């Protein structure tokens, strides 16, 4: 089933919704500033907060998407939904070709956070896609009908450190 994403993006008065979920448009300046603020103030607690916030909102978002689209009921179509929604939300490109219910690897050749971080702050010394890690963990938990926190996602390579692409490893937590 092909989702017509532009149809799902709607405005009701001053509020924006994507498939019924309240969203906001923010640019890389704000997203990267928030990440830097949390990371520099709280260290690993700050990056965990970014990860968990992304995981929880992705989990809630995917639950809502699938409730709105009951015909998307196979794992393949749900993974495709995840990939296209990531792209439609301006978050980048993500490939779910090496993933199973027990985990696997996910590759992202382009992302909002990488583009934004490099444009704003330049090269990092350590992987920095905390949002994407959490987003993947939340989406996969919904797709494989698991509870939130079921998966742990780590970033093995990151374009913020000038790697060729971002590579995420998914394991059962």
């Amino acid at each position, binding site marked *: 089933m092909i989702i017509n994403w*532009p149809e799902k993006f709607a405005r009701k008065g*001053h509020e924006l919704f994507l498939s019924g979920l309240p969203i906001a*448009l923010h640019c*890389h*300046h704000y997203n990267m*500033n*928030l990440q830097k*603020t949390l990371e520099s103030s709280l260290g690993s607690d700050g990056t965990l907060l970014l990860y968990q916030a992304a995981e929880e909102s992705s989990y809630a*978002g995917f639950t809502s998407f699938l409730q709105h689209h009951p015909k998307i009921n196979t794992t393949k179509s749900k993974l495709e939904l995840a990939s296209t929604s990531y792209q439609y939300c301006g978050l980048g*490109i993500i490939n779910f070709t090496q993933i199973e219910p027990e985990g696997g690897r996910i590759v992202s050749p382009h992302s909002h956070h990488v583009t934004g971080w490099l444009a704003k702050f330049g090269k990092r010394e350590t992987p920095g896609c905390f949002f994407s890690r959490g987003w993947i963990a939340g989406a996969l938990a919904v797709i494989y009908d698991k509870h939130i926190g079921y998966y742990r996602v780590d970033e093995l390579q990151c374009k913020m450190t000038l790697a060729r692409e971002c590579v995420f490893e998914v394991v059962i937590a």
Partner: protein
Amino acid sequence: MAIDTDKIVHAVMHGSRIREEKGIIPLFGVYLSMIPVEYYNKISFGFERKMGQDGSAEKLLVAAGQECGYATFQGIRSSREWDEVVQPMIEHTEDQIYCFVSIAIAFGWGDLAVEELIPHEKLVVRASDSYEARGYWDAYGKADAGKCYMLRGVAAAFMDLVYGAEYPDGCFQYTAIETFCQAKGDPHCEFVARKAAL
């Protein structure tokens, strides 16, 4: 020419449906993302709780919003889309602020309105439905202080951009307070930006 908020909102809605091949939304000179407001609220209020009640989180979050607003709206007013859609509406310097507010509405930041603008001195912006205030109220109940950190910083950034030193030297020349907030039970949220004390 009056500021046509509907035209600006339409331009943002139209432009934000366009993706380039990398899955990025380049619009108005910045890279946009569509992320659930729940994410931003979890980050802001989670950060505040982890940092403690000494006000340091509030200062950092407002500063993040102000620096973001400053860079974002500078990018916006330097963009092709601004030249095509917004610039023809601008007759006076102050009109820029009304256009900034229209764009913030288009971004889904709240139903904002300029209540008062005294050039160089004071800006009062009101919101009767901010996602930050609503998010705080829904998650934690009544607040004892204003919770719209992003909007507060952005209100000051609007003044920085229009009346501060030339970009990029004007950020934080103005500062804003939140005089009313729906998270406190007030009927609306209100932000008052004035020149920062040196």
